[in-house]
C-alpha cells in the first residue's frame, strides 16, 4: 500500500513538469512582453528591452523552461515581475484562504448531498424524492457566480445579515462557500441518488433481505458503502472544478486569495506568479485525487488487494 502511494507521488513529478510546460507555453503566446506591460505603451523600446533582459525574458522559450524547472527544484519559485516579491511568499499568504474556501465548499456540498441523495433513493417516488430531485435539477443549472451575486443582494445588501466581502472572520466565509456549495450539492445529490438506486437493485441486497435483515440495516450496512464508492470518486474529480470556480467566487466577493492573485497575474503577464499559482493548484488537486484513491482503497477490499499487489 505504501509502495502504491509512493509510486503515485513520484508520478506527480512528470505531470507537474508537463503542467509547467503548458502554462509557460501559453504565457509565451500572450501578445506583448512583460516589460512592455509593466512599463506601459509609452516606454521606449530600449527601456523595454533592458527590463526584459533583466527579467530574463529575452532568452528562447526552451531555455526559460529548463531554467524555471531547475530553480523550482532548488525551491525557488522566482519573483513576481510586478511586485518583486517572492512568488512563494505571495502564494503562501493567500493559499490558506483559497484552500479553506474550496474545502469548505466541498464539505458543505457533500454533507447536504449524501443524506438527501440516499434518502431520496430509498424512498423513491415519494414526495420527498420528487421535491429533492426537482430542486436538484434546478439548482444544478444555477451558475455559481450568479448565485453569489444573488446571495450578496439578499443577505448582505438587503437584509444586512452577512458580510459581502473580505475574509476577516469565519462569518465571511459563509456566503462565498454557499455560492459553489449549493450547485455542487445538487450535482452530487443526483449522483448519489443514481448510485444508490443501482446498488439497491443488486443481488446481494436481495440476499440480505432474505436473511430476514431489518430494512434500515440492509441500507446502511450493505447498500451504503457500495453506493458511495463511485460518488467519492466523482467528488474528487469535481473538486477540480470547485478549485477553478473559486477563482470566480473570489472575484465576486473580493476575497484576496490565490484566485484573485492569478487573475491579476494573467492580465499583466506576470509569468512567475502565474506559473507558481498554476503549480500550486495542480499539486493540490493531484493530492486530493490521491487521497480519494486511498480512501477508496480502504472502503473497497478488492481495490485494496490490487494496490497491495495481491493476486486472486
Amino acid at each position: 500500500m505504501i509502495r502504491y502511494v509512493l509510486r503515485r507521488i513520484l508520478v506527480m513529478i512528470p505531470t507537474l513538469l508537463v503542467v509547467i510546460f503548458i502554462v509557460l507555453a501559453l504565457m509565451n503566446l500572450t501578445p506583448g512582453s512583460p516589460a512592455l506591460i509593466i512599463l506601459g505603451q509609452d516606454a521606449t523600446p530600449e527601456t523595454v528591452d533592458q527590463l526584459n533582459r533583466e527579467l530574463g525574458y529575452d532568452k528562447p522559450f526552451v531555455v526559460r523552461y529548463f531554467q524555471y524547472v531547475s530553480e523550482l527544484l532548488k525551491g525557488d519559485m522566482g519573483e513576481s515581475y510586478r511586485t518583486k516579491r517572492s512568488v512563494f511568499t505571495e502564494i503562501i499568504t493567500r493559499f490558506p484562504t483559497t484552500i479553506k474556501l474550496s474545502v469548505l465548499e466541498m464539505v458543505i456540498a457533500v454533507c447536504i448531498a449524501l443524506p438527501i441523495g440516499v434518502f431520496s433513493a430509498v424512498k423513491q417516488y415519494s414526495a420527498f424524492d420528487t421535491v429533492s430531485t426537482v430542486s436538484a435539477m434546478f439548482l444544478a443549472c444555477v451558475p455559481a457566480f450568479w448565485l453569489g451575486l444573488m446571495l450578496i443582494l439578499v443577505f448582505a445588501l438587503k437584509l444586512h445579515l452577512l458580510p459581502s466581502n473580505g475574509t476577516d472572520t469565519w462569518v465571511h466565509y459563509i456566503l462565498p462557500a454557499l455560492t459553489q456549495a449549493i450547485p455542487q450539492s445538487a450535482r452530487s445529490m443526483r449522483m448519489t441518488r443514481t448510485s444508490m438506486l443501482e446498488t439497491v437493485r443488486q443481488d446481494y441486497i436481495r440476499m440480505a433481505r432474505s436473511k430476514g435483515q431489518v430494512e434500515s440495516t440492509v441500507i446502511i450496512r450493505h447498500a451504503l458503502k457500495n453506493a458511495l464508492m463511485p460518488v467519492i470518486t466523482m467528488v474528487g474529480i469535481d473538486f477540480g472544478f470547485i478549485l477553478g470556480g473559486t477563482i470566480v467566487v473570489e472575484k465576486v466577493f473580493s476575497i484576496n486569495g490565490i484566485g484573485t492573485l492569478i487573475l491579476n497575474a494573467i492580465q499583466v503577464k506576470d509569468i512567475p506568479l502565474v506559473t507558481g499559482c498554476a503549480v500550486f493548484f495542480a499539486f493540490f488537486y493531484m493530492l486530493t485525487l490521491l487521497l480519494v484513491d486511498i480512501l477508496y482503497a480502504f472502503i473497497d477490499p478488492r481495490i485494496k488487494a490490487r494496490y497491495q499487489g495481491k493476486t486472486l
Partner: protein
Amino acid sequence: MSEKLLEVKDLRVVYNSNEAVVHAVNDISFDLLPSETLGIVGETGAGKTTAAMAILQLLPERTGRILNGQILYKGEDLLKKTTNEMRKIRGACISMIFQDPMTSLNPTITIGDQIKESLEIHNHKNRSKTELDARVDELLTLVGIQSSRKYEYPHQFSGGMKQRVVIAISLACNPELIIADEPTTALDVTIQAQVLAMMTELKEKLNTSMIMITHDLGIVAQTCDKVAIMYAGEIVEKGTVRDIFSGDHHHPYTVGLFGSIPDLEVETKRLTPIDGLMPDPVNMPEGCKFHPRCKSCMEICRTQSPKASRFGEHVIVCHLYDQEVCSWNHY
C-alpha cells in the same frame, strides 16, 4: 398423514411495469411435506423464480404484486403476516439460495461476517459472540471451507466456493425449508456435481425440506422426491419423481422436455427441441397456453383452458386426459 410443511394454493403473481402487466405466475398450487424435496422444472421465463420469491415475499416492491392465493407454512398463511413476522421467518424458518453466487455476496464484507449476520438476526437464545463465531466455523467446515478463511472477502473465492458460502448462510439458523433457485446453473459441470452432492448430503443430515428450482432434469432425478413442471406461469404436470420419470402418461410439454435430452445410447443426427418459444407473458394465448407448440393440439385446446386430471399423486393439466382412462379422477 404427516402435516404438510408448505402448502401453496392458487398463487397468482403479476408484475406491473410502466409498459404492461406481466402475468408471471397463474394460479399454481403445490405442497411439501417435512424432509421432502420438491423439484420445480421449467424453461427460463416459466415463472419459477417468481413463485419462489413470492413465498418469502421478496418480490420487487413497486412492480411485483401477489393478486391471489394462500401460502400456508405449517398451517399459517404467510401472505397475511406482517413485515416483522415475515422477517422472523426469513432465514430462520425458510431460507433461500439464489442463482448467481457471483453477485449474491456483498463484495465489501468478509464472508465470515456475512454468515454471522444470519445468526445475529435470529439470535433468540442470546448466544455470545464466541458462540456465534464457533457456529460460523462449524458451518464453514460443513460446506467444506477452511474456517480460517472467514476473514476473507468474496472476491478471493472461486464461483463454486462462493456458492458454498451462500449455502452455509442458508443453513446457518437451521431452517426447515430451503428454496434453492437454480443453485448450480452458474457453475461449471464438475463443480456442479460437487455442490449438488454436498447439498444432498446436508439435506439428509439435517432433515431439511427443499424446493429445488431448475431447468435440468438430471438434477431433478438426483435430488428430488416430487416434481412440478411449470410452463408459462402454470403447473402443467406434477407428481412423484417416479410418476414423472417413468410413468406412461404425461403432458405433451413433459414429453417434449424429455425428448430434447440427448441420449447416450441412441444414435441420432439431430436433437429434437420443442418447436416455438414460450409465450409472451404480456400476451398469453387463449385456451391452453401450450397449444401453439403442442403436437397433439385439438380444437378444444385453442379455446378452453384444460382442467387438472389426477391419478393418485400424479396430476396432469391437459385436455388429452379429459375423458380418460377410468382410473383418472377429474377436478
